[in-house]
């Protein structure tokens, strides 16, 4: 196989290299980019500064903490994982520049957990992720457009899509909240548009529907949403947007003593971030949210317990949903690397994701959809209720898992049981 090298040489040298590559691949010693006998280099781009950074800026450090833990316990077949974090400030231009550095200069083996819809769209096209055959695992975005094996052959999502989320919320409303007056506040971009279509398909009609543009959310804006919702008499309000919009919405509602049944989209419902934004915690009491993971405070959960221990030792950040998510991406990355075998190659990693990815241990309750024909990760949610401390519990006392797809497939209740956490949080799969 001819490896694409970053360096551009003359034809002659290229041909030489190519034959050398052919020769090398038959040797047991590994010659894949970013992999040496003692190290595997991985990269991630994420907003560490800028308006969109709070919350997300914790993911990289959480992944790093997990990798450190694994490294101290023997690494992956003896190789230690190095994670290079690059700050893209949530700007697509910087995502590309930084991903170029990761791939061409730092020569990472794979990308793990890159953030942002526009960011990864731009990176995938401009950097030529598919053409360079760089594995991009566990994209941190719920945009359903990435769920295409054809367009994104080397990329794999992890979060259920916004479309799945909306379909599940719609199903839940039909089953549990019929006859109530419904309100909807949504960000009129990919969050909201996906959601809108799903509600329409499910036949859920809203009495009050308020779109807002990303970036315009503030306390003043929220006051108008609340007066419109209250005027329309909405008893159940569904919210699809980011946390910086949830915060003023809930704060203002609490102020105006407007208390409908809230259903908050998963993106904007992290209690710790909400609390940091000054939302009185009590307003979260009783709010419903589709959730994929257990509560980050649920120490009876074997995953959460183990991750908290690792966090205390290697990271020392407030343990919230972002840290949980970062750790979990770390866990899944290690399983993927192990599944790819001792002779680690990019192509091997992708094959491993396709053939074994669906059996990986992950903190989320829903099944993983990876296969030869699908690059979709988690495929479902359960509905959770938040309490007065902002913690969440399954609605109705136990987890009722719904699974679905991003297209027109049905929403079904599932009895799926997730795999157990590997002993001590150290995968031994192969």
């Amino acid at each position, binding site marked *: 196989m001819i490896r694409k090298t970053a360096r*551009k040489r003359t034809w002659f040298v290229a041909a030489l290299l190519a034959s050398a590559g052919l020769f090398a691949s038959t040797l047991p010693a590994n010659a894949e980019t970013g992999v040496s006998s003692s190290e595997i280099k991985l990269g991630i781009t994420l907003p560490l500064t800028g308006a969109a950074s709070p919350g997300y800026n914790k993911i990289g450090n959480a992944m790093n903490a997990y990798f450190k833990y694994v490294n101290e316990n023997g690494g992956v077949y003896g190789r230690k994982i190095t994670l290079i974090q690059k700050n893209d400030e949530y700007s697509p231009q910087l995502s590309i520049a930084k991903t170029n550095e990761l791939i061409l200069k730092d020569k990472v083996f794979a990308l793990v957990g890159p953030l942002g819809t526009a960011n990864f769209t731009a990176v995938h096209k*401009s950097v030529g992720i598919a053409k360079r055959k760089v594995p991009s695992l566990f994209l941190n975005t719920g945009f359903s457009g990435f769920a295409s094996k054809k367009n994104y052959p080397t990329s794999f999502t992890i979060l259920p899509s916004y479309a799945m989320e909306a379909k599940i919320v719609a199903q839940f409303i039909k089953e549990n909240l019929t006859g109530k007056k419904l309100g909807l506040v949504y960000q009129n971009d990919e969050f909201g548009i996906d959601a809108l279509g799903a509600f329409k398909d499910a036949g859920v009609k809203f009495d009050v529907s308020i779109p807002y543009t990303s970036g315009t959310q503030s306390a003043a804006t929220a006051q108008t949403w609340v007066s419109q919702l209250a005027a329309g008499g909405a008893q159940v309000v569904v919210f699809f947007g980011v946390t910086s919009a949830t915060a003023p919405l809930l704060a203002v509602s609490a102020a105006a003593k407007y208390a409908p049944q809230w259903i908050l989209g998963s993106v904007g419902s992290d209690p710790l971030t909400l609390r940091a934004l000054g939302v009185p915690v009590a307003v979260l009491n009783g709010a419903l949210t589709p959730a994929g993971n257990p509560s980050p405070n649920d120490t009876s959960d074997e995953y959460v317990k183990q991750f908290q221990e690792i966090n205390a030792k290697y990271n020392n950040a407030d343990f919230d949903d972002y840290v949980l998510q970062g750790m979990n991406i770390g866990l899944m990355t290690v399983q993927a690397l192990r599944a790819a075998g001792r002779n680690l190659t990019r192509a091997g990693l992708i094959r491993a994701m396709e053939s074994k990815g669906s059996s990986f241990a992950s903190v989320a309750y829903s099944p993983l959809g990876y296969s030869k024909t699908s690059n979709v990760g988690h495929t479902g949610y359960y509905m959770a209720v938040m309490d007065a401390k902002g913690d969440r519990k399954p609605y109705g006392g136990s987890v009722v898992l719904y699974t679905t797809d991003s297209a027109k497939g049905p929403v079904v209740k599932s009895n799926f049981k997730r795999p157990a956490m590997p002993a001590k949080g150290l995968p031994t799969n192969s």
Partner: protein
Amino acid sequence: MRKKILLFIVLGWVLLIVGDRVDELRVYQGAQIAMYTIALASIVLLTGYSGQVSLGNGAMMAVGGYAAALTLTNLQTPIWFAFLMAVIAASLFGALLGAAAARLSGPYLAGTTLALAVGLPAIANQFTFLGGEPGILFDVGFPPERLGEDFTQYKWFFWIASSIALVALFITSNILSSRFGRTWQAVRGNALAAELAGVNSSRWKILAFTISSALAGLAGAVFAMNISLVAPGAYSLALSFALVTGAVLAGISSLPGVAFGALILVAIPEVADALAGRLGDADKLNNYLPGLIVSVLLILSVIYTPNGPGENLRKLRHKRKAH
């Protein structure tokens, strides 16, 4: 004139060779430098020659980028036509804004264009055909096959961007050294005197705004090509600020300086990364050092070499005034 053509041909030839010798990362950075060069030329023309301050060049680039992307995706035209549409759309928009701007003195114009730059994402999100937050893909396609299998995508970007930049700079330098450039300088230096000499100063200001916007729009389309996408997040306020910084560092009235300014803009993040690594790898340091370096450079250069390498010229003029 003939000398100038020769100079640009030699320049192009040098770029061609350099592009073949450096690695892919540098080739991509070269494409970005070419893009910034065009964008900075637009500021030099507007601010350095015609004396108007715009902080909204990022917005003008967005107009060009969106025009090009919409043309390419909806009409499936050849690439060159998309770039042409970028120029046309941006210059129309620039003429409109210029008409409002011509009545404004410095700070009003700066503030208004700043507001435009801040508000652009909101406006872009307002219309669904603009693709909202995720934006629209801008795909110039793979390099032609006859260039060989080893001809990378980035090299293709670099070739396109550099050729456009060379042509744009050639035209701009001719405009600036013609009667146009001199009239702008006259209007900037003393609008009243220029009016007395029969120059309609606001018409000239609008013209400068239009041409500058055309250049910015072109840069915006090249930018869209480099990042394969137009999205509100790409044409941010930070981009507008970076452009102003680049122009000041280059010497705001020096056209040859723009290449230098563009080089610095691309180099700063890398330099900052290296520096932060040396100073210890603290998270905060890594994250805020690039901004710090840019700001300090901007402040130092605006205080100590406000007119860039053309400083000597300024002193000469100063002396003449004193007589």
